[in-house]
């Protein structure tokens, strides 16, 4: 047991641990039901929301879902498509028909080459984990400047905060544009000092966002940044 930022007691569960009877409760992610008993399947913190029990995992891999905004790297280029590294188990596929440009067959490399970073959205994921990405949409584009910082996938929500409140606070503090991908990659654009501060702040939020001293540390960092400016 431990205390999080909310002060509520949290229970750390391990795979196979019995959580309680399943009667009257719904099972969420990280939980299975066997013989009317809920059993945790992942190492993480037990949560109960709207009568649904789930485990917020301590570690997890990125599992793409349709509609996710991701920061992707071009991993491979073919005549009519790009293979994108989306920080998941499988590469995503971006066909030229879903690129924001008019691409001639065989000319894909002229628009994006290996190593380029893009902001894309997951269009479709099938049951065999084939991921199709799209760059047709508002704000989806090739990222030509700035820096990409990686954070643990399970901490993406923590970086955003309630209604993007924390993310906006970080943006304001460093005067940078910050886009958080669901795949645990964050794109930061601004002056070099702002980017450096944002990277440090992101790692701090990922590591200490749940603790009681988090607010004080962030306030101190913000103060320091203001002083430097």
């Amino acid at each position, binding site marked *: 047991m431990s205390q999080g930022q909310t002060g509520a007691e949290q229970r750390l569960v391990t795979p196979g641990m019995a959580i309680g009877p399943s009667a009257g409760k719904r099972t969420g992610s990280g939980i299975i039901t066997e013989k009317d008993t809920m059993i945790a399947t*992942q190492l993480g913190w037990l949560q109960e929301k709207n009568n649904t029990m789930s485990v917020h995992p301590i570690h997890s891999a990125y599992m793409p879902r349709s509609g996710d905004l991701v920061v992707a790297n071009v991993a491979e280029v073919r005549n009519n498509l790009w293979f994108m590294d989306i920080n998941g188990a499988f590469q995503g596929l971006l066909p030229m028909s879903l690129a924001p440009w008019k691409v001639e067959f065989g000319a894909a490399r002229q628009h994006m080459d290996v190593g380029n970073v893009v902001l894309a959205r997951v269009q479709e994921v099938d049951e065999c984990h084939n991921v199709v990405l799209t760059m047709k949409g508002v704000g989806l584009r090739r990222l030509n400047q700035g820096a990409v910082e990686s954070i643990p996938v399970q901490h993406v929500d923590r970086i955003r905060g309630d209604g993007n409140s924390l993310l906006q606070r970080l943006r304001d503090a460093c005067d940078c544009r910050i886009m958080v991908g669901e795949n645990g990659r964050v794109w930061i654009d601004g002056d070099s000092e702002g980017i450096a501060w944002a990277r440090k702040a992101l790692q701090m939020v990922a590591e200490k966002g749940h603790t009681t001293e988090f607010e004080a540390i962030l306030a101190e960092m913000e103060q320091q940044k203001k002083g430097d400016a």
Partner: protein
Amino acid sequence: MGGYGDVKLLQEDGLRLDGRKLDEMRPVKIEAGVLPAADGSAMVTHGLNVAVAAVYGPMEAHPRKIQRQDRAVIDVRYNMAPFSTSDRIRPGFNRRSREISKVTAEALESVVLVERYPRSKIRVEIEILAAEAGTRCAGITAAAVALADAGIPMRDLIVGVASGKIEDTVVLDLDKAEDNYGQADLPVGILPNTGEIAFLQMDGDLSPDEYNLAMEYNFKAAKEIHEIMVEALQKRYEGGEA
């Protein structure tokens, strides 16, 4: 095996060569998250055995012929370091490590929810740094903790534990001398919460009664090791959510 030679494995007071009782296990120490580069890792010290396990993935299974359209494959590589025993071991895969890798993978497949990751591969590397009988059990225990540390969904943890027979007496957790000069060895992989057996091998002969007693010892030891595994995982994240 077979009890040849004049090695006396049981003393007159009923204790074993290292002073343990018949149903006493060697000391076990487990640490989770020992390798920063791995997605999950663990180190198990079981007596003089030291096993380190690292888990990577789930990732796309390569070569593609090993992919399963409905589930993930678990790729286990068990290896003993050349310096793990008193005689240097030739580095690389051999028949024994191939066999242990295979049985370990099959044991882990029965607990990991492999159907969640079709076409994927979960890579488990088990390195034995020091060996003193029971390395496959220490390896399985380490792999289970490393899988949990990596956030891989599992039905239960799996505990590797062994019993055996020396001088016509069933004992728990054979050490090197008992393994070399004893009459039987019964390593099993136990799911402590459900009481299921995920893998079982037997070297030597046991009567039904001896087998039942050996399994009784194994289940008792599995419970003890399971507590240490849970403690190791919880200790890694004590003091709040990571």
